[in-house]
């Protein structure tokens, strides 16, 4: 063992112990670091293939209540609620050129057509998510409908409603985990349609832009949209 000062059996055993300890410490650190995936904000039009899954592309706000026709409600001051369309709806159809909202005083029934938007010359209907009476319209959105695309959940609200039978109405709306599962199923449905039409959009890392439904089906896109918004009959 002469001349092997650092690598004789005792020395090497010592190094082995140190390496083993360092390894265990580093493994803990490494695994923690690897699992810490703080999510970057999503940029509109980003390449989908680089994202975890399509579901992440459609935002839901946790505290809101959602109607399956892709409208939402959220309590406002004076026991009124705000009503709007969700992120999925706004991304699906893109920027509307005109809005037709029910006037103040109009009585709404849950599940009946209430809101209208004009996109590319076609009128798209949305269902009312609740029963009640319209008390206010968001004039800002009517003047510049692109607010809807920029901030569908806050500045992009459409009408304020004085609700009736709110507990019953809420029973029929989706919230929290259920809403999340529902949007996942919606995405599944969407991917069925996409693969049936032109898979190009998703598979090849192509970009999904606002109003992408129009690219999927040139003429009949309003019918597909109506299927999602439950206004197809």
């Amino acid at each position, binding site marked *: 063992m002469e001349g092997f000062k650092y*690598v004789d059996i005792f020395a*090497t055993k010592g*190094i*082995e112990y140190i*390496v*083993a300890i360092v*390894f265990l410490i*580093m*493994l803990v650190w*490494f*695994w923690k*670091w*690897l*699992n810490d*995936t703080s999510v970057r904000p999503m940029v509109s039009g980003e390449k989908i*293939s*680089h*994202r*975890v*899954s*399509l*579901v992440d592309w459609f935002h839901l706000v946790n505290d809101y209540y959602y109607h*399956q026709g892709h409208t939402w409600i959220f309590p406002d001051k004076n026991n009124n609620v705000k009503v709007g369309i969700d992120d999925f709806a706004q991304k699906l159809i893109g920027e509307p050129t005109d809005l037709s909202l029910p006037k103040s005083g109009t009585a709404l029934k849950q599940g009946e057509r209430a809101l209208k938007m004009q996109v590319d010359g076609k009128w798209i209907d949305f269902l009312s998510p609740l029963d009640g009476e319209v008390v206010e319209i968001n004039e800002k959105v009517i003047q510049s409908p692109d607010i809807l695309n920029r901030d569908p959940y806050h500045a992009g609200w459409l009408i304020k409603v004085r609700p009736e039978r709110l507990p019953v109405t809420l029973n029929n709306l*989706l919230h929290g985990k*259920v809403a999340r*599962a*529902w949007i996942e*199923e*919606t*995405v*599944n*449905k969407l*991917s*069925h349609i996409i*693969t049936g039409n032109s*898979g190009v959009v*998703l*598979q090849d890392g192509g970009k999904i832009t606002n109003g992408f439904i129009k690219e999927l089906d040139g003429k009949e896109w309003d019918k597909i949209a109506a299927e999602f918004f439950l206004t197809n009959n």
Partner: protein
Amino acid sequence: MMHDMSKLELLKNEIKRFITFFLSELKPKGKVITPFNVIAAIIILVGTVLIVIRFTFGLSSITNLNQEFPWGIWIGFDVVTGVAFAGGAYVITFMVYILRLEKYHPIVRITVLNGFLAYVFYAGALLLDLGRPWNVINPIIGNSFGVSSVMFLVAWHFMLYMLAEFIEFSPAIAEWIGWKRIRKILGSLTLAAVIFGITLSTLHQSGLGALFLMAKSKIHPLWYSEFIPILFFVSSIFAGLSMVILEGSISQKVFKHRMSAKHIVSHDDIVLGLAKICAGAIFVYLFLKLLVFIHDNNWRHINTTWGYWFLIEVGVFVLLPLQLYSNAVKNKNIAVVKAASILTLIGILLNRLNTSVIAFNWQVAERYFPTWMEITVTLTVVLVEILVLRWLVNRLPILSDPPLWAQRKKKDPIQQIFLVKETVEESEKNKEMEEWKVSSM
């Protein structure tokens, strides 16, 4: 008596139905003349001729093998590397059936099928290398078991593992043919087969390494260690998963039409999950390598040509993939995951070839290099496997969803209330469609 007659009648009808069905499935789906098919056909044709020559005139007629180098790439690549690449099956089935990570369910079937075919073909390629291939049956039937040999363990493990993987995969076959009852029976065997399969896998992945313990004096000390079995086992985890990632990205292009919507949507998520496991496993492997290196006092070999070669293997094909996988997971970058998987696979190939061929007999002046014929035969084995895989994927419910009758009816309230808006008309149509597909078997 009447009853028996009708049963016999039923069986007869079933056989008739099966034969018509099978013949109709034999027809090629898609274009026959494609560049890939033509090249594959030529190679397979030449390969088949070479295999005939090998069995007629012996190993020396087409290989460079001799007493000094009894094992060439047929063992080093086909068997030793092929089995490591097929390791994905036991890892994925462990994750899905034991840990219940449902996220990975969509890739179970394709992975198990890949694993099964890999074993059939690559372990099958072992026969090419046996001087008297018919003796392969001896350890099984007991005409001298050879229990003192690691080969005994490897032989039994390969055979039992193929059986276990076949059972795991068999529900897909029953679904394809439409055997409802048989599928139920086979489906109930899955979990047992999975547990059995995992046990066998962990043992024979390391068992393959243990084979090389016998060749201590022949393998270069940088690759020889008494811990080869452990290194082989740990590396088979990320080798297998890297293969799953690579195959997945190829499938996504080639078999897109067969993939279920859920599979397509969840694909990226699955790939990133696998990449994370790969990163973890490579991290462990790297440290094991380091420990073995220190334990065996290998510093003195580093400043030699073999040492540099060793450093390339570890640096470029272990350390770099680790870095790529980790970064890809952090940045959610699928393209980098794919690149990392390719590098990892090359690294595993290099490691296994180093152990079994390149750094084997490193002190002997003579070097072994495979003949073009050995390479052609290896390519033949790989190509035939790919063709069989393609044939099956295009017909069986492997990437696609199982037929409706075989899908578990989920009692998901959301689906029931909001989403399953299947019209009466549609469900009638589906039922009709099923009628002729599903038999009473």
